[in-house]
């Protein structure tokens, strides 16, 4: 038989616990409402509209396996990574239109992000070591020249999985897509001398079964040196 005083004490403790739980819940709700009220969700800055600039796009053509430079005017952000993404977006828009010379579905949203990284182990070049940077076209002729960049960078292009999944399969078409992306980046950001690819943030063996996405693609001096050896062929050097 439980004594009466113990039953009374137990009942009081249970009531006190319930009252404290209710109080805590009430205080939590109040704190949450104060926090939400303190956040000003109104825009504080108008969206920037970048001025239109000219960008050189290396547009692929499946019929003659060529990359032809085209100059387009489009708004370009100041940040180099965003700039590269904007340029590549325009390039892939051209491939997504009906009856394109290099048809690839996807469009501007196919490039998720472009990261620019300093190349490990590459020291800034001095004036005496500057050399000419070129990209070779199908004719082997350089389309862009000028001094080599003082601080060479690597561009890591993160492609969307949908773009890769819908890309046509084939040696020629995949090669042209990769080379046009590499060439377009270098034409607009000459400091980029190496390009690597990711798909949805992950490394992937190939674009659609043929073009190797595991290696670093060199653009610039190395490509120019090969252009002299085989002028009849579009050149690109892959570092194994």
């Amino acid at each position: 038989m439980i004594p009466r005083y113990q039953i009374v004490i137990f009942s009081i403790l249970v009531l006190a616990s319930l009252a404290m739980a209710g109080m805590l819940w009430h205080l939590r709700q109040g704190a949450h409402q104060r926090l939400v009220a303190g956040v000003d969700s109104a825009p504080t800055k108008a969206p920037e509209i970048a001025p239109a600039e000219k960008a050189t796009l290396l547009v692929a053509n499946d019929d003659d396996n060529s990359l032809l430079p085209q100059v387009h005017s489009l708004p370009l952000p100041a940040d180099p990574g965003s700039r590269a993404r904007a340029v590549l977006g325009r390039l892939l828009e051209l491939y997504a239109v009906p009856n394109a010379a290099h048809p690839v579905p996807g469009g501007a949203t196919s490039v998720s992000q472009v990261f620019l990284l300093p190349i490990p182990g590459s020291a800034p070049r001095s004036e005496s070591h500057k050399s000419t940077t070129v990209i070779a076209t199908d004719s082997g002729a350089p389309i862009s020249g000028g001094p080599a960049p003082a601080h060479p960078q690597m561009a890591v292009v993160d492609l969307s999985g949908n773009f890769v999944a819908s890309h046509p399969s084939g040696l020629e078409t995949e090669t042209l897509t990769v080379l046009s992306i590499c060439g377009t980046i270098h034409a607009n950001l000459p400091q980029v001398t190496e390009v690597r690819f990711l798909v949805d943030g992950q490394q992937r063996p190939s674009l659609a079964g043929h073009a190797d996405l595991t290696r670093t693609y060199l653009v610039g001096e190395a490509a120019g040196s090969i252009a002299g050896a085989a002028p009849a062929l579009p050149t690109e050097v892959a570092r194994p």
Partner: protein
Amino acid sequence: MLKPAQRVALASACLVAGWAASMSAQSSTQPSSTPKPALSSQRPQNPAAPAAPAFRASTAPVPPTIPARFVVVLDAAHGGDDLGGHLSSGQLEKNANLALSVRLRSLLGARGIQVVTTRESDQSVDMNRRAEIADHAQARACISLHTADTGSGVHLFVSSLAPAGSGRFVAWRTAQAGWITRSLALAGVLNAALLQAGSGVTLGRTPLPGIESMTCAAVAVELAPERDSDHKITAEPDDPNYQAGIAQTLATALLEWKTQAARPEGGSTEGRQP
């Protein structure tokens, strides 16, 4: 009557003379070996051959009278789980590649060219395994066969590796660098034959992971649809007649390549060297 010492000396002289005569006869019959079978899907019966010429030590020059072995490796790309692309006709690329390989193998065999194939059925073959087969065959030409439904005509690709001299030891992944010049020359022969046959041809260079481990003149051949002047498709890449025509032209080109390799400047057995 001979003394025992004289008998021993005479017997020794006879033995030495007999051994010398047998060695002489053996060496004189070696070059006139019977020709190897024109068609083979297996590795060549040459177990003493090293895996790759890049690792061969320099040997004594071979007399030019010895006929050089001319082997072509046909590599039907993809296979098994690796489907390749999906052609617009509904066919899988791996099957169209194999069909083209079989056609070309038959035509080369009919021309007396020994053929080694990397696969004879719908099976997965690793990239490294394909290169091992090609290197072990000591081939004069390695053709990787692809089909695609983009572009038009025939696309010829050579590895984009920079040309390099051949050393005694070469890196596996860049072994093709010592053969780039020969590969470009082979692409030129194929290009000329295809143009002469009226086919549209595009040339290119690209990283080719499997081919870049091959120590032979190697070209990737991609068969695209045949199109007319209005850019309309007149033959799909898996069309039997279209494939037969292209295979015929490739076989003719490889016969020309064999003829070039047999010329003195081609160098008989030396012609396989990069």
